[in-house]
C-alpha cells in the first residue's frame, strides 16, 4: 500500500505552486527550505531534459545531485526564475547557498528567447530600447495576460494605458520594465475634455502611442496570448513584427511567393529588378488564431467558427489597395507614421468588445492612405496571436451594428481620397484627410463630422506632446 503523503510534503507541494507569490522564505526551517529548493530544482531539471520549458530560459548548469526522489512529485508551474532564486539566496541559509554553488546555478539575467533565426537573418538587429509595447488595459487584472507574454515582453519597455472608464485597480505582476498611465495621467497630459473624447475604451492605447519615445511600437489586445505555430513552438509575436518592420515592403508589384525577404524565398521570375529594393515597412498587421476578428453578424451566424488555419506568410498589401486593419495585433514604425494611427471614429454605442468598435478599421485605413502617399509599405500576415473567447456576438450585435453599416461609406471614401503633393509628413496627410472627411462624409453621418474634428485635434495634441517630450 502506498504511504499516504505527510503534512510536510503536502505543504511543500502547495508552496511550490505559490512560490512566485511568496516574498520571504527566511522563516522556514532549514530542512523544509532545502526540500523546497530541491523540488524547485528538480522541476527545472525535468523541464530541461524533456525540452518542456516553454519560456526558453537558459538551463542552469550541470546537475550533480541525486534529485530523482523529487522527480516523483507532480510537476507544476514553478520554474527556478531569477526572482525565486533570489528568494532562496536571501534566506542566507548556509546549506541552500552551498547547494546553489554545487549545482553551478547561474542567475538567468534575461530569458533566452526562442526567436527563430530566420526572422533576424534579413532584418537589422535592433536594440530592445527601440521598442515600446503598448497595452490598452480593458481588464483590470493583467496578471494572466502578462504572465503568458512574459517570455516575449520581459526584455522590452511596456506602456500600459488603463481605459479611463475602468474603475477597478490594475493588477500587474512584477518582473517587467513598465510605466502605467491612468485617467489622471491622461487628463494631466492632454486635458480632461480630450481624454474623455479620444482615449476611452480600446482607444486608450493611442495615448501610449502619443507619449512613446521609441521608434517601434507593438500593440496587442489584452485578451490575447501567444499562439503556437505548426511545429508547436511559441510564436514570438514581437520579434515577427519587428522583422516585418525592419525588412522592406514591396507595394508596387505583387510577389507570388509572398515576402521575398524571408529565408527560403525570393522575388519570382517576372518581378522588375528596379522594384526589388522595396520600401520601408511602416505598419505590420498580424492575425489571430482561435477567435478571429470577425464582425458581430458574421460571428453570430457562425458562433462555433474558430480560425485554425495557420498561414505561414507575410505579404505586402499593394499600393492603393485598402484593407481592414485590426488593432488586435499590430506593430508600426512610430517615427515614420506615428501620427497617422489615430483615435477618431467613435461609434455612438461603442463598447468594450471589438465587435462594438470600428476605431481601428478607420485608423488603419488612414495609415494605409498615408503610407501609399508617402511611398512606404504595409504588411499583413504573420505573426499570429491566440485570441481568447470573450463576449457574445449576438449581444454585441443587438447593441451595436451601426459600425457595420458605416463601412459602406468609409471604404469608398478611403479608396478614393487623394492627398496633395504638399502633404509630405504624416501630420500634413492627416490634416488633409480630415478636411476631406469633413467635406465628403460629414454630411452623411454626424459620427464622421466628429471623426474629422478628432483627427485635427489629434494632430494638434501630437505636436504639443512631442514638443514637450523632446529633449
Amino acid at each position, binding site marked *: 500500500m502506498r504511504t499516504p503523503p505527510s503534512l510536510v510534503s503536502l505543504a511543500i507541494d502547495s508552496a511550490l505552486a505559490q512560490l512566485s507569490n511568496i516574498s520571504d522564505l527566511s522563516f522556514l526551517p532549514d530542512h523544509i527550505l532545502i526540500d523546497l529548493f530541491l523540488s524547485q530544482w528538480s522541476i527545472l531539471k525535468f523541464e530541461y531534459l524533456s525540452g518542456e520549458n516553454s519560456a526558453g530560459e537558459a538551463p542552469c548548469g550541470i546537475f550533480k545531485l541525486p534529485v530523482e526522489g523529487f522527480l516523483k512529485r507532480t510537476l507544476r508551474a514553478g520554474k527556478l526564475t531569477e526572482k525565486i532564486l533570489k528568494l532562496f539566496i536571501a534566506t542566507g541559509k548556509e546549506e541552500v547557498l552551498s547547494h546553489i554553488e554545487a549545482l553551478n546555478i547561474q542567475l538567468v539575467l534575461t530569458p533566452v528567447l526562442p526567436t527563430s533565426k530566420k526572422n533576424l537573418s534579413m532584418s537589422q538587429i535592433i536594440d530592445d530600447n527601440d521598442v515600446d509595447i503598448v497595452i490598452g488595459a480593458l481588464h483590470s487584472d493583467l496578471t494572466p495576460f502578462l504572465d503568458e507574454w512574459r517570455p516575449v515582453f520581459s526584455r522590452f519597455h511596456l506602456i500600459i494605458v488603463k481605459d479611463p472608464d475602468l474603475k477597478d485597480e490594475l493588477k500587474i505582476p512584477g518582473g517587467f520594465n513598465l510605466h502605467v498611465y491612468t485617467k489622471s495621467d491622461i487628463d494631466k497630459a492632454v486635458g480632461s475634455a480630450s481624454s474623455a473624447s479620444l482615449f476611452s475604451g480600446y482607444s486608450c492605447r493611442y495615448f501610449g502611442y502619443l507619449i512613446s519615445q521609441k521608434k517601434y511600437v507593438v500593440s496587442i489586445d489584452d485578451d490575447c496570448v501567444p499562439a503556437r505555430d*505548426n511545429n508547436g513552438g511559441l510564436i514570438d509575436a514581437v520579434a515577427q513584427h519587428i522583422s516585418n518592420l525592419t525588412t522592406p515592403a514591396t507595394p508596387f*508589384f*505583387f*510577389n*507570388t*511567393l*509572398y515576402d521575398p525577404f524571408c529565408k*527560403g*524565398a*525570393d*522575388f*519570382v*521570375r*517576372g*518581378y*522588375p*529588378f*528596379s*522594384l526589388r529594393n522595396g520600401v520601408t515597412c511602416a505598419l505590420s*498587421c498580424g*492575425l489571430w488564431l482561435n477567435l*478571429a*476578428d*470577425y*464582425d458581430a453578424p*458574421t460571428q453570430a451566424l*457562425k458562433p462555433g*467558427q474558430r*480560425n*485554425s*488555419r*495557420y*498561414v*505561414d*506568410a507575410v505579404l505586402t*498589401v*499593394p*499600393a*492603393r*489597395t*485598402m*484593407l*481592414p*486593419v*485590426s488593432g488586435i495585433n499590430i506593430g508600426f514604425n512610430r517615427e515614420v507614421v506615428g501620427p497617422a494611427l489615430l483615435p477618431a471614429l467613435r461609434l455612438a454605442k461603442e463598447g468594450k468588445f*471589438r*465587435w462594438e468598435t*470600428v476605431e481601428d*478599421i478607420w485608423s*488603419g485605413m488612414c495609415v494605409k492612405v498615408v503610407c501609399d502617399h508617402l511611398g512606404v509599405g504595409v504588411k*499583413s500576415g504573420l505573426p499570429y496571436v491566440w485570441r481568447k473567447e470573450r463576449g457574445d456576438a449576438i449581444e454585441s450585435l443587438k447593441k451595436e451594428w451601426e459600425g*457595420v453599416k458605416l*463601412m*459602406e461609406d*468609409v*471604404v469608398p471614401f478611403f*479608396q478614393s481620397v487623394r492627398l496633395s503633393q504638399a502633404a509630405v509628413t504624416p501630420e500634413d496627410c492627416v490634416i488633409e484627410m480630415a478636411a476631406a472627411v469633413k467635406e465628403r462624409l460629414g454630411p452623411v453621418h454626424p459620427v464622421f463630422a466628429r471623426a474629422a474634428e478628432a483627427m485635427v485635434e489629434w494632430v494638434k495634441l501630437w505636436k504639443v506632446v512631442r514638443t514637450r517630450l523632446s529633449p
Partner: protein
Amino acid sequence: MAAGTPLLKDELDIVIPTIRNLDFLEMWRPFFQPYHLIIVQDGDPSKIIKVPEGFDYELYNRNDINKILGPKASCISFKDSACRCFGYMVSKKKYIFTIDDDCFVAKDPSGKDINALEQHIKNLLSPSTPYFFNTLYDPYAEGADFVRGYPFSLREGVPTAVSHGLWLNIPDYDAPTQLVKPSERNTRYVNAVLTIPKGTLFPMCGMNLAFDRELIGPAMYFGLMGDGQPIGRYDDMWAGWCTKVICDHLGLGIKTGLPYIWHSKASNPFVNLKKEYKGIFWQEEIIPFFQSATLPKDCTTVQKCYIELSKQVKEKLTNVDPYFTKLADAMVTWIEAWDELNPAKDSAKLPNGSAK
C-alpha cells in the same frame, strides 16, 4: 462541411505543351484520367510523343497548327512552351487547366497528395474579392470568412477568371536569381488562396494555371517567344499582364496561392539567361506601361479589350524595341484566329454588365 467539388470532367480541358515525353502523366493519372487532354507538341513534328494508355486526348504538332491556322499560325510560338496557347484556342470547353511536363503531384504538410485540379476548380467556382483586401485571405474557404470592417456590399465578390497555383521544390526564379541561389528550394507551404487586388500587377507563371476560357480565354495569348524571337520565358508573364489589365477593366477576379505542385526540373540558368536577357531590361518599361494602361468604356468584350491593348502596345512600346510592333500584330492575329475557331456564340462575352 463543404460539399464535394464537382469534377467538371466535361467542362474542362487539360492543356499540356511538351517537347520530350509525357511520362509525368502517370503520377497524375488518379486526378487527370477523367479529363480530356490537349497536347501541344512543340519542336520537331516528326517525333512521336507517346501518351500513356487510358487518357483521352487530342495532340497537335507544328504541322497541325500550320494546317489549322494557315498564315495565322505565325502568331503561335515555335520552340517555346508558349505554343500551349494554341491548345486554349482549339479547346471547346469552358475551363482550361495547364501544367508543365516537369510538374508532379506535391504533398501537403500532412503528407497527403494534393489534387491540384480540384483546388483550381474550387478557386474558379468561388468568387474573387479584388476591391478590398481580406486579411484572412480567401473568405470563401472553409473555416474562413470576411473580417470585421469588410463592407457587406462587397461580400458577393466577382466571378473568378484565373486561378494561379504555386510550386514546391524548384521555385520559379529568373536566371540571375537562379545563378545566385542554385540550391534554393521552396519548402514553405502557405495554406492560403487570395485575390490579387484590382490595380495590382503580378508575375503570372504558366506552370500550374487554370482559367475560365469563356470569361477570359482570348486574353491568354502567350506571345511570340522562342525560335526567331529575341526573347523567351516571358510568355506567361505577357499573358498575365494583359489578362490582369483586362480582368480589372471587366470586373473579373484573379486568385493566387493554392494549389501547389512539385516542380522537379531546374532549367539551365545560362540558357535561361540568354532567353530572358532582353526581357529583364524590357520589363522595366513594360511594367509601367501595363500599370498605367486604361481601356475605354466601350471595350466590353475580352477581344475588344485585347485589340485595344495591342494598339497601345504598338504605340507605346515600339520605341523600346521593334519586336513590340511584331508582337502587337501577332496579338491581332491571335484574336482573329480565336474568333475564327470560336465563332460568335463561343466568344468571351461580358459576364455581368458594363465595363468598369
